[in-house]
């Protein structure tokens, strides 16, 4: 690593990007195993019975928190560390600060992991990070924003590219959202209004942290890989401002038909349907960009990951516009339908984008070409088949559960009739795990190859 004061300082701190990618992959491995263990509980094959720290209820929280703060956050930080200096032609504020944030963030993950298993989880969905971890996360976020916003503010480029709009908005949103969700219902706002805030947090974490950074990275990587500009700048504008306006006002749709005031529920439903219209513009924009270069779907694996992720995004948005209505909620709320939706959003979209990003970046950060493209392709197909079928299975199982409940069948019926779906869900999860195992082996084998003379795309420039 070059010291921050060196005039020969690299534009992108490649070692830091690599470290975050490795951390992201590690968290992904943990969350896959946690998800598998939890899925096995439903068929009475739980692998760690009778161990309090590995109780299924606690392991489930490890699964979701490692997804949000381990897998996605680390990969996104890697993406930001890669994209922002290239878009602004300026390095991050300080490499030392970057490493401090890296280690602090992994410390937060370890504390979260141990805290949840030790029984200190917080009762906020997606915010189960123990109360003693929350201040650390907030400090970490402030440091991260300081480090990453610096090049954007100091750039001498004319204008800011659309990726940077998303990143800046996300910088403002993430800390606010985290503070609101982890503190207000915990200490100050009880009952139904507290639940409204908790719902807002569940939603905003996806909508105001994961979504904007995800799209910002897509606006960066897709034109770069396709070697052509984004199709329409006007649509970029509409997409960004539409998301920024409508996304923050939908939280209550997580608690429809609850004691939260009905006007807040109606408002959430309307805003949700509105944003699904807006995101169509973003999707149109990206497929407009692909037009004429669709051969890249075959020849370029990162592009394939990105665009299949976008198809999943279109699917989740369509699903969301339907499931958010009060009518459909009667049946599907509290069922596996919602679980399927959550998996499609968090993994089918953002996880796919992260996988595409890893396929693109890994050879560049280790300075070696991929060990095996066949393994990469196998990883893609196993994951895609696993994810898509998991989504369909959980959606179907959710309908079965919802209608059985509505028909006043005995509760045990809804469990017994769910078992085939739970089995199938576990098998689809195994497909994803198998694909990921191949991918991780491929990453490892790539990194340990002898260094080639040619290092593709390892950008160096003077600061």
């Amino acid at each position, binding site marked *: 690593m070059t010291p921050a004061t060196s005039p020969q300082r690299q534009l992108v701190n490649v070692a830091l990007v690599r470290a975050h990618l490795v951390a992201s992959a590690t968290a992904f491995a943990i969350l896959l195993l946690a998800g598998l263990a939890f899925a096995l509980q439903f068929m009475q094959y739980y692998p760690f019975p009778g161990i309090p720290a590995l109780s299924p209820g606690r392991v489930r929280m490890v699964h979701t928190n490692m997804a949000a703060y381990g897998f996605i956050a680390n990969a996104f930080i890697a993406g930001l560390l890669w994209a922002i200096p290239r878009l602004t032609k300026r390095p991050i504020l300080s490499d030392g600060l970057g490493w401090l944030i890296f280690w602090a963030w992994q410390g937060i993950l370890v504390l979260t992991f141990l805290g949840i298993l030790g029984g200190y989880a917080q009762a906020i969905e997606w915010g189960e990070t123990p109360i003693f971890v929350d201040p650390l996360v907030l400090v970490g976020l402030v440091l991260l924003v300081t480090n990453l916003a610096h090049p954007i503010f100091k750039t001498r480029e004319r204008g*800011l590219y659309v990726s940077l709009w998303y990143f800046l908005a996300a910088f403002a949103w993430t800390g606010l959202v985290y503070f609101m969700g982890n503190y207000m219902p915990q200490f100050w706002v*009880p009952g139904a209004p507290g639940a409204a805030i908790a719902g*807002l947090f569940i939603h905003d974490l996806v909508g105001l942290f994961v979504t904007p950074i995800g799209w910002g990275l897509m606006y960066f990587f897709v034109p770069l890989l396709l070697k052509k500009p984004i199709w329409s700048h006007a649509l970029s504008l509409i997409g960004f401002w539409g998301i920024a306006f409508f996304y*923050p006002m939908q939280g209550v749709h997580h608690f429809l038909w609850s004691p939260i005031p009905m006007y807040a529920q109606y408002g959430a439903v309307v805003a949700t349907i509105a944003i699904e219209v807006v995101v169509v513009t973003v999707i149109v924009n990206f497929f407009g960009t692909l037009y004429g270069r669709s051969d890249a779907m075959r020849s370029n694996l990162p592009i394939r990951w990105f665009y299949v992720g976008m198809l999943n995004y279109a699917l989740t948005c369509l699903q969301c516009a339907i499931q958010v209505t009060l009518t459909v909620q009667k049946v599907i709320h509290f069922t596996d339908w919602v679980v399927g939706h959550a998996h499609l959003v968090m993994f089918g979209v953002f996880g796919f984008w992260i996988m595409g990003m890893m396929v693109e970046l890994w050879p560049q950060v280790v300075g070696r070409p991929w060990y095996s493209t066949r393994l990469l392709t196998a990883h893609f197909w196993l994951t895609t088949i696993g994810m898509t079928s998991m989504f369909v299975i959980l959606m179907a199982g959710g309908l079965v559960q*919802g209608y059985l409940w509505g028909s006043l069948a005995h509760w045990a019926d809804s469990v017994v009739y769910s078992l085939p779906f739970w089995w199938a869900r576990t098998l689809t999860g195994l497909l994803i795990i198998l694909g990921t195992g191949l991918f991780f082996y491929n990453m490892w084998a790539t990194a340990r190859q002898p260094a080639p003379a040619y290092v593709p795309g390892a950008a160096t420039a003077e600061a």
Partner: protein
Amino acid sequence: MERLGAAFLIAGVVTFLLGFVLQGVLPMVTYRKLPVKTLAEISQDIPEEFRQLAEDYPEEFTRAFGEVNPASFAQALSRGRAVYIAEGCWHCHSQYVRPVSQEDLRFGPVSNAAEYNNELNLPPLFGTRRVGPDLIREAGKHSNDWHIAHFFEPRDVAPYSVMPPYRWFFDDKGRPNKDALAITAYVQWLGSWVEQVPQTIYNVDALAGAKQ
């Protein structure tokens, strides 16, 4: 670029606040006149099930909580809720009855906001998934013994349950420890403020009686 960059940061703050006011602050304003009950106030109403718990497990109860009084009930509720959260119970059991899908027939009266305005709903435990049934009307539907047996081995009393056993709520001899008593007290409190145990499809005998 400071100015343009700041514009996007400010836009982020403004849009966040707009959503926060519409979806978070307005519900608070709507419910501002609902009194927030403290744990000390809640624990004044000791349900029959808690007294029964002291009789069912006298030795264990005395060791864990002493006598039956508001102070010990408050202690049991708060500990029981802590166990409920630590074990992630709320990820598989919701705590609100909706006015749809015949839930009032299945569980009991539809939930209202006043029921949740208390210290034990900080944070609220509405839940998002029902692998097991909703619990906000659970008080009195089953006996304490049923709950204790259910925590020890759910399938002994609910044959098709997929709930894991919680053996660490019990000592070597299989006697319930403080956590078992506390979470039973907590679950038996949920809905104890409703005048009567709801006549639902769970109270099969009660329902059969009503049909005659």
